[in-house]
């Protein structure tokens, strides 16, 4: 928490520059039609930015393992929400029939 603070300022500045570069990259990538790759690139860059902010600006690389556990748990729970909701959405048969047939689901 209160240790070795002097060395942090240049680190912050460097991370900030990297974040802006990543922002420029993601905007530039969105200008080109790369098909499915667009989504992959844009989400990967977002994840990279988030990880940098969390590790450096939020000091998680110096945090207690307990804080890391909390973050891991929150991400796991988010993954559960998505995975099991999509256990439904990804396997609905009427997605294949598509169209206004949703009301005969009963």
């Amino acid at each position, binding site marked *: 928490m209160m240790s070795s603070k002097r060395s942090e300022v240049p680190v912050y500045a460097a991370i900030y520059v990297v974040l802006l570069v990543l922002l420029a990259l993601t905007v530039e990538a969105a200008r080109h039609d790369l098909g499915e790759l667009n989504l992959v690139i844009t989400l990967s860059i977002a994840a990279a930015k988030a990880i940098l902010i969390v590790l450096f600006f939020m000091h998680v690389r110096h945090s207690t393992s307990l804080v890391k556990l909390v973050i891991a748990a929150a991400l796991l729970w988010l993954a559960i929400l998505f995975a*099991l909701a999509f256990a439904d959405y990804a396997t609905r*048969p009427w997605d294949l029939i598509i169209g206004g047939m949703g009301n005969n*689901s009963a």
Partner: protein
Amino acid sequence: MTILVAPESAATPSQPRTQQRNYLTDGYSVRSWLLTTDHKRIAILYLLSITFFFLLGGAAVIVVRLDLMTPQADLVQSETYNKLFTAHGVIMVFFFLIPSIPAVLGNFLVPLMVGARDLAFPRLNLLSWYVYMLGELFTLYALLAGGVDTGWTFYAPYSSTYSNTYVMATAVGIFITGFSSILTGLNFIVTIHKMRAPGLTWFRLPLFIWALYATSIIMVLGTPVLAITLLLVGMERLLGIGIFDPRLGGDPILFQHLFWFYSHPAVYIMILPSMGVVSEIIPCYCRKRPFGYAFIGFSSVAIAVFSFLVWGHHLFVSGQSIYAGMVFSMLSYLVAIPSAVKVFNWTASLHKGSISFDTPMLYALGFVGLFTMGGLTGLFVAALAVDVHVHDTYFIVAHFHYIMVGGAVMGYLGGIHFWWPKMTGRIYPEGWARLSAILIFVGFNLTFFPQYILGYLGMPRRYHVYPPEFQVLNVMSSAGASILGMGYFFPLTYLSWSLYFGKRASPNPWRATGLEWQTSSPPPTENFSETPVVLDEAYDYHRFDSLAATEGGGK
């Protein structure tokens, strides 16, 4: 747990000075209560507020049960009936059961049990009570202004588009109350991690703490999803966005996914703390270390995690994909494992114990039986095919009342009796208390067992007119409810009576282990005269009793 408190503080409780000064006598003004940051006083504030709401929710269901005495609609009209069972569900779930044990017993006991002076964030704790009260006000307004008729589940698009009752105010009330639950859970987790007394390792903690820790995980990670769901319903009502409205391209099943992501684990918010209470009571009244301490502790955490994997079993007939149904059905059986581990361990703890049937033990044993029945019928409804038959029938109603009332409320009452001397410094009248525990057990079974049969025979829930052949079982159920109601009325009376006329309690009237029994009854504001040091395992009743015997009888 034979905690050897520093020798002088073990002796203090018998001195009259500490008997005089305690958290209750530390200021008598209204202000000293409403602005307190003492976790024990906040627990009392919660106790009063949730008791009020328990009575209100009970009143709503009295009319419901009266109306169900006859097959016709002779007491209330359909709209009123809808509002009554909604009021009963909303109040009992969100304003009584969820805060019951965590906010009352948890607030009171967590710092005492871990040997701390207070929770980690005392002001946040007070804030959580005010947040709860604010949510309560919104909901009360909705009920007084005309009620809600959506059922406690607020299924969209009925709740978000069609119902012309006070959905908005109720949703806002529950949204706000959710934050109280989040703040309480957050406070507990930080306290349990950071404030334990020296020597109090995780495996020396009382199992009640393990249970509340697991509960807090659900509160912190589940409640926000309910909040966003209600926000979406509110926005849909207010601004006509179409997230859940199929007319506008939305998906009503998304509502059910989001709602049950919280509301299924919420059942474990209600039952886990009760399991914790039972894990405290049973060792004390059979004078024995519980069988498989670590299994009971870890099964709490396992239940908290598994509870988030099963929500889709509420959607078997909603139009959810059949493949998701299979996954959720299989995962639902997973929860049975840690639950059964607990039941087996409690039962095994009784083996060769010197059992006494005092009031808390009656409640605890009642809990084990009723929870087992509720849990086993849960396996029925988690099976895809059986659920098609019993979905939305009284079978479901009976099933979740066995868990929420037979389980959670029995645990709550057992806990209230067990720690009543600690909270108030008074002993309740044992005879009356046993009588009411038995009344509640009998009344409960008479009320809800017939509902299993009703549901299996096909009586749907949430209707107040039914074919005449169901009348006998319904009359039985209503008769049971009147006994149950009487059983609840007794504790209210004799516990209040004991506040003034009850025998004064010694620091440790039940000869229980655990840090909370090492301080005076009621505890002083700062909990312990000096920070206790824990040197021994939890629930070491064997050593505790032999020590007491050699010292010529402790208390």
